[in-house]
């Protein structure tokens, strides 16, 4: 059971990297702007998963002081990821606002159409 737990734990990191690469692939290979923003968010969230799994302690509890708990998970990465989540939503909102304005200016949110219209100018 220990051997299984140890190896499943290492697989945590690898699945997080797989998710990162999925998001990355969505950004570089798809032309739709909203899909690219969704891919960026997937990338971001998978980085958070990697970080939080680094901060987990075997047998530890959530970092809230209470009776009878001696071992805590590391609270510092939690704080950093909290900030990162909120900053992420701020940049996503700005990205989506820009997408709406691009749609109004070019009539489409596909990269090929936008590039064609720019080249035609």
């Amino acid at each position, binding site marked *: 059971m220990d051997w299984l737990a140890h190896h499943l734990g290492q697989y945590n990191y690898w699945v997080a990297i797989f998710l990162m690469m999925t998001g990355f692939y969505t950004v570089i290979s798809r032309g739709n702007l909203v899909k690219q923003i969704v891919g960026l968010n997937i990338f971001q969230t998978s980085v958070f998963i990697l970080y939080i799994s680094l901060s987990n302690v075997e047998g530890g509890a959530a970092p809230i002081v209470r009776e009878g708990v001696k071992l805590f998970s590391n609270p510092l990465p939690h704080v950093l990821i*909290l900030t990162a989540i909120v900053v992420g*939503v701020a940049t996503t909102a700005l990205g989506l606002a820009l997408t709406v304005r691009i749609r109004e200016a070019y009539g489409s949110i596909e990269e090929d159409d936008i590039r064609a219209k720019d080249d035609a100018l």
Partner: protein
Amino acid sequence: MEQLIVSVLLAFLAATAVAVIRLHNLFTVVMLFGVYSLLSASVFLIMDAGDVAFTEAAVGAGITTVLMLSTVALTGARVRRRKGRARTLLPLALVSLTGLALVWGTLDLPSYGDPDAPIHHHVAPRYIEQSPVEIGIPNMVASILASYRGFDTLGEVTVVFTAGLGVLLLLGGRRKRGEDDEG
């Protein structure tokens, strides 16, 4: 046991992410993103990160999904299918290369859940021991967020405020159906 649950949830996450790549209707893509965010919040919760799970569920599955749906309502929900294998081979190669490099990097990482990992040895024990004494509130994440790392939180609030201003500048001029008053 909890490691098994996390593994199952991560498998669901991987399936959702792959589905997002392949779908062609933006409405479905955004809904799957909401599912992805909620599953991530569950993973955070099982990994003992309560505050982070709370924030990810509220912000990711809540606000971001609503904003993306509003955008899709304004821009249309269809995604064009791109033809050509060259368009997928080069990105696939790049992504595989990056992924392999990262996996090679993780071989040096400490074991998952190891209490002797270097990350738990420098500043974190000081916060865990001194927070009940110096600050006195039970939630250590709140004490680090608001007091020990207060400057970061000030920067974060400023970033959120700036994003609000930015969106207001970009989309605030009222443009209703049938009107065309600004460029």
